[in-house]
């Protein structure tokens, strides 16, 4: 007997921020399926106006806790580009190390605390049994990797969340020699745990194929901070054209409410990065993660987890190399060379491409700005996939709980971040899409301009 009618409206767990899954099945057919971000907006686009630009990066870091350092660096870059700051070679290297610390900690948090419990039929990571040899190893590996990433962030950026050392124009301090030695020691010691992590996610049974365009900012060598934006369907956007790309592709896309947006949906994040740039990874990573890398390019959404595990190895190998080869020297902060201007900062945040744009006036105050977050770009894919996943599962007549679990597993593979997603102008709550000035027309999921 097929599942005829089911309504699911439960809060999604083990994800960052709050979201609900709003699913209605009637006569065995998906009536609607919405992934609603029920995080309450805190209105940073409005709050940033009129602020002195020096205060902007630390303010905008508060958009999201888990990837605060990505927002911080993207906002710093936007301000530096707007006022003509030239970051020094060391500042660029320390920004890279800040991103490596962030990705090691944040990916490991997602892979172990959010995704891993599903793979072992557990409800929470803390339920893993330290008396069971394999589960003890998993517990140990998770916390060792996170601790190494956390320590690296602390010595480079001052703190692993809402960092204090990265400033507009450079860094307010450099790591001490003994801190560098300790970081290299912790990172090297954690490497076997990272290789085991890659192994574990290679074995992950889940599979969900999704035909889509993959998009990321890529460079040679692999970078989270520089490069040009490409897709696997021939798009190639250089930095000088980011403004046009932002205006005509990214902003309209992430505000789209209909399922189809000009017929193209795209995915950002680790899976996109590894699909598009796996050959630019650190050569040590490519050597030791060869078997995993052979699976890419991949259209299996669950390989977003495996791609994150590979990135942890890259960040670890690249950090060790930088820490061992660079001689850190105290440097004064750079100075602006322009009085006013508009700048765009683009960073590959853990969950995908993050855009910050700011316009700064002669008085040094922010006139206006935009922040376009990765989760907003992935949301349309997530909803389409959920609907298809339900249709795949319906014949096996799942009950509500197992359906909710399967759908949450797919959402977790995307590693969405609701704190960020609640930020973008269009708020989607239980499928009701509203843009400031427009209200939802109840029976049609279309935006209707407010009279």
């Amino acid at each position: 007997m097929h599942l005829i009618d089911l309504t699911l409206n439960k809060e999604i767990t083990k994800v960052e921020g709050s979201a609900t899954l709003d699913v209605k099945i009637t006569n065995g057919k998906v009536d609607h399926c919405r992934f609603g971000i029920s995080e309450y907006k805190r209105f940073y686009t409005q709050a940033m106006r009129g602020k002195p630009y020096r205060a902007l990066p630390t303010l905008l870091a508060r958009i999201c806790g888990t990837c605060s350092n990505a927002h911080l660096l993207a906002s710093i870059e936007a301000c530096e580009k707007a006022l003509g700051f030239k970051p020094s070679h060391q500042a660029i290297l320390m920004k890279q190390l800040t991103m490596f610390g962030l990705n090691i900690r944040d990916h490991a948090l997602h892979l172990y605390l959010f995704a891993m419990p599903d793979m072992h039929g557990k409800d929470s990571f803390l339920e893993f049994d330290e008396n069971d040899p394999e589960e003890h190893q998993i517990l140990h590996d998770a916390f060792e990797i996170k601790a190494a990433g956390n320590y690296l962030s602390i010595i480079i950026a001052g703190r692993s969340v809402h960092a204090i050392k990265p400033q507009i124009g450079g860094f307010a301090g450099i790591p001490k020699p003994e801190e560098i030695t300790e970081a290299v020691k912790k990172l090297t010691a954690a490497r076997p745990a990272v290789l085991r992590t890659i192994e574990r996610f290679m074995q992950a049974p889940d599979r969900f194929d999704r035909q889509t365009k993959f998009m990321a900012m890529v460079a040679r060598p692999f970078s989270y901070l520089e490069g040009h934006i490409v897709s696997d369907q021939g798009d190639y956007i250089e930095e000088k054209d980011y403004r046009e790309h932002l205006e005509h592709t990214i902003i309209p896309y992430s505000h789209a409410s209909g399922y189809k947006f000009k017929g193209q949906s795209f995915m950002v994040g680790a899976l996109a990065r590894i699909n598009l740039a796996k050959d630019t990874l650190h050569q040590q990573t490519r050597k030791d993660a060869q078997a995993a890398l052979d699976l890419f390019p991949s259209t299996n959404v669950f390989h977003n987890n495996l791609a994150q595990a590979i990135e942890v190895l890259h960040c670890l190998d690249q950090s060790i190399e930088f820490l061992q080869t660079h001689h850190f020297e105290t440097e004064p902060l750079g100075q602006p060379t322009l009085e006013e201007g508009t700048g765009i900062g683009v960073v590959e945040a853990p969950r995908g491409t993050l855009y910050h744009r700011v316009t700064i006036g002669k008085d040094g105050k922010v006139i206006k700005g935009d922040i376009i977050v990765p989760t907003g770009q992935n949301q349309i894919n997530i909803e389409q996939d959920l609907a298809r996943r339900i249709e795949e599962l319906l014949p096996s007549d799942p009950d509500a709980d197992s359906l909710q679990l399967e759908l949450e597993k797919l959402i977790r593979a995307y590693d969405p971040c609701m704190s960020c997603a609640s930020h973008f102008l269009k708020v989607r709550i239980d499928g009701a899409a509203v843009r400031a000035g427009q209200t939802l027309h109840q029976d049609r999921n279309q935006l209707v301009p407010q009279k």
Partner: protein
Amino acid sequence: MTNKATQSTATPTGKKLRIGWFSYSCCEDSTIVFTELMNERWEVWKKVLDVRHARVLQTNNVLDEMDVAFIEGALASQEHIDMVKKIRVLAKKVVAIGACACDGMPSAQRNDFDAERLKEIQPILNQFNYNKNVQKLEEVITVDVKVPGCPMNEQTFLTALDSLLTEFKIVA
């Protein structure tokens, strides 16, 4: 100065502290700090903490009696207020986590918006019944302990956790 919650010498009495971790209008950053503090303390915490409710950590959450409820973030809607009132009844102690819970800011920044900005965000406030003002925890329920900081101050949190573990006779 190390803390009992981190010292392996603290002898667990076998009882566990029933806790809940709740996040409202915030960036969930103190939650990240909490998961980082676990890196060196997970073995002790697994023995002394019984996590009743923590949406970010587990799926099967039970909202029943708790010894301590940790609440992060400010309160932006009636739904938030109803929840924290319910938590206050269920929890013997409530700990406000981070600046947003303790003082409201920065999540309550819209309280200070000028007329022009308020007009711009009004449609969203109406459509999704946000409260007129974002409130800090103390404006709605009594708070027993405060852990300020943006994100929460780690040392203050560990000290607070220690005194609670002692108070509830979880560690001797």
